[in-house]
Each structure stands twice: as C-alpha cells, then as structure tokens.
C-alpha cells in the first residue's frame, strides 16, 4: 500500500471529489495497474478491476476506539469508499491521547458518529455510515451487505459473536455469503491481526485459547491462601471492602479508596510473605486496566487494513489462504518482533466445527438410545435435548406438549425416522449453540 495521503496544504484540490477525482489515489492506482512480484497472474488483472474493487467494496468496521480510529483512517486513505462503523461507546477524556479522530469538545459523544464525521471531512469521497449501538442489534441481513469485516474490538465476547454470525451465514450456494473477517487486537505492547475465512479457516472460536482468559481466582483462594500480590489486592477489593466499608460505594477513581485498598493489600501481603504489591498495581487490578499503547494500535491496524486491501484487490497473498498463514502475532516489548503462522482449524470447534458433523449410528438402534448417548457425549452432555430434522420433530424435552407427542418416537428405530446422510440439529436450554449432525449408518 503506497502512501496516498497528500499534504492537504500543498494539493488542496486532490482530495478525491474534484473533477478528475483520481489525483489523490495516483500512487495506489499505479500500484494496482501493474503486475508485481507478489501478484497471482490467474487472479490479478491489473487496472480497473482491483481499483474498482477498492472503491466498491463495502467494508464494515467494528469498533471505533484505539484500533478503530486507525482502521478507519487507513481504509479511507487507501481508497475505500463505502464503510460502515459500529461502536456503542461514547468518548471519554482518557481516550484522547491515542484515539486521534476525537477532540476535547467531543467528550461524551458517540465514537462511531464522531469518527465517521472526522474521516469524511478529511476524505470527502469516502462515505462512512455510523451505527451507535451493539453488533448484536443487527441481523444477518445487515451483515450480508458487506464484502469484508474488519474488527478492532477489546471484547472477546463481541468477537465470538460476530465470528459465530459470519460462520453461520455461509451458504454454499452463495459466494457473497462468505465474508472475510479481519480481526485486530492489542494488549499493551502485544497484538495480533488475523484473517478468518468463515468455515474455511480456523475461526475465532478455534483460536479462543490464544486469548489468555482473565484470571478469575477462586474466592476461596483469595480468602485463605493468597500466593500472588494480585490475590492480596483482590482480597482487599472483594472481601475486605465488603466487610469494613460496606456502606460506601467503591469509586475506583477516588485516590482515598485506592489507598485504602492498597494498604489493606500490602499488610496482607506482608502477612503471607508476598512481595510486589504497589499502589499502581492496586489501581490496575481494581480498575482492570489494560494499558493501551498508540503505536501497538497503529501497527496492528496497519496490518489489518493491509490484509483487507490485499483481499479485495488480490494484489498480494493475504493471510488466511487455506493451508497458509492466517495469524500475525506482534510483540513490541523487546524490539519489534512479528511471528506469522497458520492456526489450524479445530474439528471440534463449537462454531465452525459445528457445521454438521458425521455421527455413526446403527439404523436398528432406537431414538431413545441416541438421546441417551447425547447426554454422554463429551462436547455436549445434553440432558434435555430437542432434536429435529428439516422435516421432522424427532424428540423434544420441552415444551410439555411436544414432549408428549414426540415421546413415542423414542421407541422407534432410527431407520424409520432418519435417512442416511440426513442432518439433524440438537438444542438444549443449557447451551447457546445448537449441535448439528449428519447421520451415517453403519
């Protein structure tokens, strides 16, 4: 991606909405108008096609925070013209050091709309539609309109949701249903960018173990056998405060409150011979602060947008080609280190591995036996399952009326109910996901 940012003072008319229109994108046009060392001759037709792809691709950016500001800026300056951005948050004064699309006057306003406004002012040819709210407010019809989704989120829950949604949308008869998902993430000096081709490559659910889970220490550990300085702080935070200052609502921005917790934690740490409790650690643990570093955001966002650009233009091999690398890990705390690798798709992934899985069944066994075996399957342990095919309600544990009318099926042989190769779906109130299986008779 050649730099396409023109100094506005020098070339005030080349901002993309003048008559010639392309002056601002001169270098990008040059890049896309010739084959290069990394272009695939079968896939890359230099000229109008890749240039048009950049202009016409509808990109969804999820998150307009530290990463989102960078992503929106990068996409707009790379020539993308149709962008939607979703963010539910409003601007806080502490964002201003790195979320450079926001100014002091914007504090309290929604991030998505302020970011969209700012970028559109600088790059008038780019149309950014903001949505202030949750990604969960939107349905598949909404997500279907995009060509690429770029995420700059700090929430694992939100990532899992969009991942499951995009995986679930893939319809093998509709090429447009497959939406490449590019996910950037940062934590302090570390970050990653990865490309997911839903159902084709390892997905966010497959890669869940790449996120260190927020260490929730059992309460009993905090109360009885602290081993780390953080345990002492959590003890002061969760247990001691409740005991001694119950009537006072803890304000994590009140230095007196943090000092109180720090002192309690420190004396407990001394009691257990644990070193390392500091005031700033106390603040960090209590406020659950993940330090945000502007340059980490910039690097990860650059990589994410680079992948988006390569995917829509085919101008170079992008992350996520099946069998090739799909994950770029960045470590900035000792030099600038990146490691790019292939994270393998997991067969037992509840999201993308949850595409119908083959289940070997004896056609002479009964539905009741199948239902019992579901309770024993390690991945599911479905105690109150509801099972159906496209045509038939096989057995429903609930509601009562369906239980009653489907109960006789439990005694019936599978061959009377299910055809070889037929799909069936199993849900259970205790699980968010629905398991899907394909019958394979033995």
């Amino acid at each position, binding site marked *: 991606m050649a730099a396409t940012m023109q100094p506005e003072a020098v070339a005030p008319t080349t901002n993309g909405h003048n008559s010639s229109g392309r002056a601002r994108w001169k270098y990008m046009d040059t890049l896309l108008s010739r084959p290069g060392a990394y272009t695939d001759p079968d896939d890359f037709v230099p000229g109008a096609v890749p240039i048009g792809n950049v202009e016409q691709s509808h990109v969804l950016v999820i998150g307009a925070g530290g990463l989102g500001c960078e992503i929106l800026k990068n996409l707009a300056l790379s020539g993308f013209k149709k962008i939607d951005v979703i963010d539910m948050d409003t601007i806080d004064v502490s964002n201003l050091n790195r979320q450079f699309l926001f100014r002091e006057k914007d504090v309290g306003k929604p991030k998505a709309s302020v970011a969209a406004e700012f970028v559109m002012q600088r790059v008038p040819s780019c149309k950014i539609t903001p949505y202030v709210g949750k990604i*969960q407010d939107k*349905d598949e019809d909404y997500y279907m309109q995009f060509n690429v989704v770029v995420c700059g989120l700090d929430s694992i829950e939100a990532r899992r949701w969009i991942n499951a949604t995009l995986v679930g949308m893939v319809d093998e008869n509709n090429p447009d249903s497959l939406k490449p998902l590019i996910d950037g993430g940062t934590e302090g000096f570390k970050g990653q960018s990865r490309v997911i081709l839903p159902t084709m490559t390892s997905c966010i659910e497959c890669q869940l173990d790449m996120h260190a889970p927020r260490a929730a220490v059992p309460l009993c550990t905090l109360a009885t056998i602290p081993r780390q300085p953080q345990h002492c702080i959590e003890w002061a935070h969760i247990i001691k405060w409740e005991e001694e200052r119950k009537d006072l609502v803890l304000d994590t921005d009140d230095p007196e409150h943090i000092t109180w917790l720090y002192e309690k934690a420190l004396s407990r740490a001394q009691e257990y011979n644990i070193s390392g409790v500091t005031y700033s650690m106390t603040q960090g643990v209590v406020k659950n602060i993940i330090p945000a570093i502007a340059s980490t955001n910039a690097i990860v966002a650059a990589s994410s947008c680079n992948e988006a650009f390569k995917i829509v233009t085919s101008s170079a091999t992008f992350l996520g080609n099946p069998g090739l690398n799909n994950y770029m890990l960045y470590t900035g705390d000792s030099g600038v280190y990146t490691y790019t690798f292939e994270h393998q798709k997991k067969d037992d992934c509840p999201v993308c591995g949850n595409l119908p899985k083959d289940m070997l069944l004896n056609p002479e066994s009964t539905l009741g036996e199948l239902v019992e075996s579901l309770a024993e399957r390690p991945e599911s342990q479905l105690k109150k399952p509801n099972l159906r095919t496209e045509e038939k*309600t096989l057995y429903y544990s609930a509601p009562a*009326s369906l239980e009653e009318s489907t109960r006789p099926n439990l005694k019936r042989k599978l061959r009377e109910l299910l055809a070889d190769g037929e799909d069936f779906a199993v*849900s259970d109130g205790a699980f968010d996901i629905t398991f899907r299986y394909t019958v394979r008779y033995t």
Partner: protein
Amino acid sequence: MLKIWSMKQQQQKSDAASGQTKKKKVTAAQLRVQKDLSELALPGTMKTVFPNPDDILNFTLTLTPDEGLYKGGVFNFTFAITQNFPHEPPKVKCKEKIYHPNIDLEGNVCLNILREDWKPVLNLNAVIVGLQFLFLEPNASDPLNKDAANDLMTDRDRFKRNVRSAMAGGAVKGETFDRVMK
C-alpha cells in the same frame, strides 16, 4: 475476492468426493425456534399445542390467567413463524373474539415487541411474557379496541363488568363476544 470462493469450491469438491450427500438442512429459523422452545419457561397458566408436531413454526399458546380482570378465561393465540424469523417477529393472533383494549375484534394484538420494537435478539419467551402482561395490565394508551380502551380509561368498574359479561359470551354495546370461560 473471487479467488476465495474458488478455493471454497475446491474444498467442497473434496468434501463431495469423500461421499457426502447433501440433504435438506434444518433451516436457520427452525434452529432458532427449536432453541427458543428449549429455553421456554412456561408457568402453569400457559401451555402450547402443536397441531402438527413436525411443524414447530406454527402452534397455539393457551393462556389461562389466574389473576386480574381476565381470571377464569381461556385464551388461545396462534403463532405463525416464517423462515425469516427472527428477522421478522412471529405473527400472533387471538383465536377468540374478546373484549380487550389491546386486542381487536379480529384477534390482532397490539404489543410493541410484535411490531415496532421487535428485534432479532428477542425470543419467543419475550413474546409470551408480553401476552401474559396484556391480560394482567390491559392498557388504554395504545388501544386496538377503542370502546374497551375508553371504558377502561373513563370507568374502570364498567370496564370490569364488560369484561365479565363478554367472557361469558354476552354482548357489549351490541357486539357479541365469544364465551371463553373455563
């Protein structure tokens, strides 16, 4: 972009070669309704009836309020769910002709989450709770049956009397209602 799809098709070809036959899949709407049904927590005053147990997209909900003005009545609602669910809300209608400010004489129900406030994140349980609420707290502010709403607003005692006589199969202002008593 095209390249991704051709790669996907290649993957599929190898899947097909490994002997997979494609039969009809459980649809997204069915998956969602099945999940909603597995999470349904019906109190004793409600039950579902599935005329065709294989079709979970069409059923009847029977409501028998045990408190409030409509206590002692039996009210049946048809639920018709399309393949667009949960993008579209279920279509819910009252089978009986009843005297209720938020239900018209055709059985149409005025409940915000069945129309303007429907969101795909809402589930069948939310709709059912909403219906239950209509019988406990009929409200005059968004009426479908203006006469009933007017009665409720101006003379609560008369409204109560009208509810009782309508439930018994009587007439209110010349309009005869279905008998819905248990």
